[in-house]
């Protein structure tokens, strides 16, 4: 047929000539055309047949299949010895003491870094608010769930931090998990640290964006990925123009106790035109001279970070969370943040408690310096225990005591560390292992005892904590090697 087309060229079609051309065409050519046509027809029909065959089950056959189908049980059985089923019950909590299963101990297990939980001022502030507003808000922010307490708190936090806008959520976990998918969508690209918390992982999953993980706290590795992407973008500039790119990091990594290199991060942000989201749940009211977080600590401008999220369930000692940023960025969540729009707002009494905690830090200006020296003390005392490794920055209140050599069995190592935790409680020190869902984590951290330092710990208490841990850690290790 190709030569037929060449023959007729651009001239108008003429049926007689067409027939003529067919006659002149070689036989094999015609045979080929016929086979092709037959094949196409067969293709069309066979496809429709195959559709028919899946759809055209008879009613009886369907009933049969329904009858035969046997589902799995709703949930598989769980190990009856799992610690989650034998949870520790807290009957009293103070600013650095806990009563766990009836035993009192010094608390280095919960994130009460500033001892705000257990301070009378915050309790009184909460109670005063409750006496006016009650407890729950009986509605989301949109539907009469906005109280002046919420508005004042948002304004106060924005002003305190030197940003345009703050937005308040009712749950720490849902703050970052809602914020990320409000901006990052399908087709976007997120560069993410391997060490990020589970809440961030859930936010990323909800966003359906493409993910690229870089090695934990390794800016060189991040830059490598960014460069790779820049090359990619050059090849496909159309796509690159509409693809949003984000870097998601934590200020102070809860799973590692490490601090992000925020200076380098900002440099990369402008170099590669990638927005930066940072979860400061652990670094807020912890790092920096006045507790304003990683940006203050590193001496960079907070407005260079596009979005900062903070959980109020750590240093502030209540519940909820908030995001900080420019009005342009943050206001978008008021219509697109799922956990903001579709959930009842934070009980006002808890916002008041947090607000009071902020006031306290402004009065007790040395609180952050004190916390830092406690952190450093513990770091020095617990570093270099034979057989163990202490992960985390010296100035971080979160430290992970890990085994130097793993047995290769995650659960076995966890159970080993758990022994130290149990015995420490008998000695009057409350510890906890960090719990993870082993199957769900993108990059499961090695097991650890997660130590959370508190500013209210006295010198005696600090000494006691470290000596108890040192002695027990050595003892448990010795027993293990004797047992082997």
């Amino acid at each position: 047929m190709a030569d037929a087309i060449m023959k007729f060229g651009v001239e108008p079609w003429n049926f007689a000539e067409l027939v003529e051309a067919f006659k002149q065409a070689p036989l094999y050519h015609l045979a080929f055309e016929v086979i092709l046509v037959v094949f196409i027809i067969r293709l069309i029909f066979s496809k429709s047949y195959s559709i028919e065959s899946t759809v055209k089950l008879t009613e009886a056959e369907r009933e049969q299949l329904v009858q035969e189908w046997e589902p799995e049980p709703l949930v598989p059985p769980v190990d009856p010895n799992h610690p989650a089923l034998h949870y520790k019950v807290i009957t009293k909590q103070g600013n650095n003491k806990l009563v766990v299963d009836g035993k009192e101990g010094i608390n280095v297990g919960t994130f009460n870094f500033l001892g705000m939980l257990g301070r009378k001022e915050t309790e009184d502030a909460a109670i005063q608010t409750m006496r006016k507003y009650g407890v729950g808000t009986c509605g989301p922010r949109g539907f009469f769930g906005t109280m002046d307490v919420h508005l004042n708190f948002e304004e106060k936090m924005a002003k305190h931090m030197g940003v345009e806008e703050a937005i308040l959520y009712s749950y720490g976990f849902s703050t970052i998990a809602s914020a990320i998918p409000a901006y990052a969508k399908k087709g976007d690209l997120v560069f993410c640290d391997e060490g990020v918390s589970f809440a961030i992982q859930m936010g990323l999953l909800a966003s359906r964006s493409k993910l690229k993980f870089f090695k934990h706290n390794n800016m060189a590795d991040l830059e490598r990925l960014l460069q790779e992407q820049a090359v990619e973008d050059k090849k496909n500039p159309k796509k690159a123009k509409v693809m949003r790119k984000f870097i998601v990091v934590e200020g102070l990594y809860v799973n590692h106790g490490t601090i992000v290199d925020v200076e380098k991060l900002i440099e990369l942000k402008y170099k590669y035109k990638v927005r930066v989201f940072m979860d400061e749940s652990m670094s807020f009211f912890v790092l920096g001279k006045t507790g304003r977080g990683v940006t203050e600590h590193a001496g960079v401008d907070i407005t260079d970070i596009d979005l900062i999220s903070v959980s109020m369930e750590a240093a502030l000692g209540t519940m909820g969370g908030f995001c900080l940023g420019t009005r342009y960025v943050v206001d978008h969540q008021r219509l697109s943040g799922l956990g903001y729009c579709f959930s009842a707002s934070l009980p006002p009494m808890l916002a008041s408690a947090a607000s009071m905690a902020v006031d306290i830090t402004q009065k007790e200006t040395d609180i952050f310096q004190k916390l830092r020296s406690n952190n450093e003390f513990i770091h020095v005392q617990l570093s270099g225990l034979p057989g163990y490794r202490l992960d985390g920055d010296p100035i971080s209140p979160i430290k992970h005591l890990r085994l130097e050599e793993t047995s290769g069995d995650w659960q076995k190592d966890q159970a080993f560390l758990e022994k130290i935790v149990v015995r420490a409680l008998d000695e009057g020190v409350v510890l906890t292992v960090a719990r993870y869902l082993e199957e769900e984590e993108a990059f499961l951290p090695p097991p650890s005892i997660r130590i959370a330092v508190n500013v209210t710990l006295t010198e005696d208490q600090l000494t006691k904590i470290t000596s108890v841990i040192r002695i027990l850690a050595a003892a448990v290790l010795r027993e293990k090697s004797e047992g082997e």
Partner: protein
Amino acid sequence: MALHRRNGTPFGKGNHDLRQNGSVAYTNGHHKSNGTVLTDETAHPKASKVGKKDFSESFEEVELLTALVTYMSYIILALVGYCRDILMRLGIDKDKAAQESPKLKAFTPLYQDFDSFFTRHMYRKVRDNWNVPIAGLPGAESDLLERYSDDNFWSFKLTGTTRKVINIGSYNYLGFAENHGPRSDAVVASTQYYGNGVCSSRQELGTLALTVELEKLVAEFLGQEDAITFGMGFATNSLNIPSIMGRGCLIVSDRLNHASLVLGVRLSGATVKVFEHNNMESLEKLLKMAIAEGQPRTHRPWKKILIIVEGIYSMEGSIVKLPEVIAIKKKYKCYLYLDEAHSIGALGPTGRGVVEYFGLDYRDVDVMMGTFTKSFGGSGGYIAGSKELVDYIRVNSHSATYASSTSAPVVEQVLSTLKTIMGRDGTTVGQDRVEALKRNTQYFRRRLREMGFVVYGNDDSPVVPVLMYLPAKMTCFARECRKRGLAVVIVGFPATPIIEGRARICLSAAHTRQMLDEALKIMDEVGEELGVKYSRHPLPPLTDKSKME
């Protein structure tokens, strides 16, 4: 009413009996006067398919003309928006929305143009109707903080004054949004004892003895073996569905399920199929096809199938046809997840929710989920079910592993409220309120229909959507009502179908009869003025005899 104004709470101090508070008992003659609902099918052989003789739900269809006009008004809104966009680009009109920082001009825009178009030209013009701040309890009456805008609603400023309004917008079904009385005193005591937070997760050091007590009582209340509670209702759905369901599983979800359920389903990675709202034929057909065909592509059989429904749908006011759902679930060997966010406390003769409302067996629901933000005046959520289920969730839940547990004052609020509902406080306050809510619901719904409003949903649902259709009328309705002392929620596109803009009323046991009559009067006036009484078959008014007890 004046009695309550003083301290701002409808229940004042201590245990007021609602009937003494001036709320008049109301029955429509169908129900026994003690408020229990007849579900005895043998006594009523012609019981409706859902097994409740008085299960009555209505969704009057919109008239063609109204629908056309509504579409037109959205089109005009959009056209005006485009024109203004052009004017803005030319610099004639001013875009006062927050702008991207100039340092980021070379970055890909943070959000799509449509999002900002919608905010700029549609939502902005009417945004005075949402996020109205209140300065106090979200109770039967609330103090609205008055706002004004001097830049066409780009921003608001508070005037510093408040206006007392009757609140029919908050989910305060049983009136437990309180700041004084025995429950509030218990909250104070718990705050002083435990403090405001927990700073740890359930699996680590976040299980307060108070929480354990609450979980036991929730399980007992719902006739289940065990229960677990979480700090946020939204997260209860979005973080627990993924631990129950996964790849190779099928989730069958009602079309109007809440965003938290939709998010949970998405995070789970399971296949999802959606059936028409509360439509049992659609559900059954879908299940039959799905089981016969198996998983997409591989046609392997599904691992398990979970049906997810809500008790009361918060935008439609409909009640799930639970007896049929359970029959279908049994026939097709599926599991059932029931979200009782709005129905717990608000339905059933003793407030135990939609299962009790239909007189069914609690054990037929596999996963009973609910929240404490509505009827309990607290915050957080629960999941109740068999011991195996709850044990599994304790071990595998995202929320129990990573998220902070609920703070003590909130747990205490829920616990003491639950005790009150169950009569464990030695009073009948809880029971009285459950009955009062039912009376208020039936009275209010009936009166609205008599007036000629199109009212959606079930006669027993305290969520009452009143159809306004046109966006302009809807927003006008809310503004006029607020002006006259009535706080009402409106919802329109995109939360509802484009033509079904509506006002949404949530009744409360704390509303006295006077408040309801005042609210009805205002709605009647405004409704008349705006011409939003669209019903073509309003009910005839009740006779005096049946109106009063």
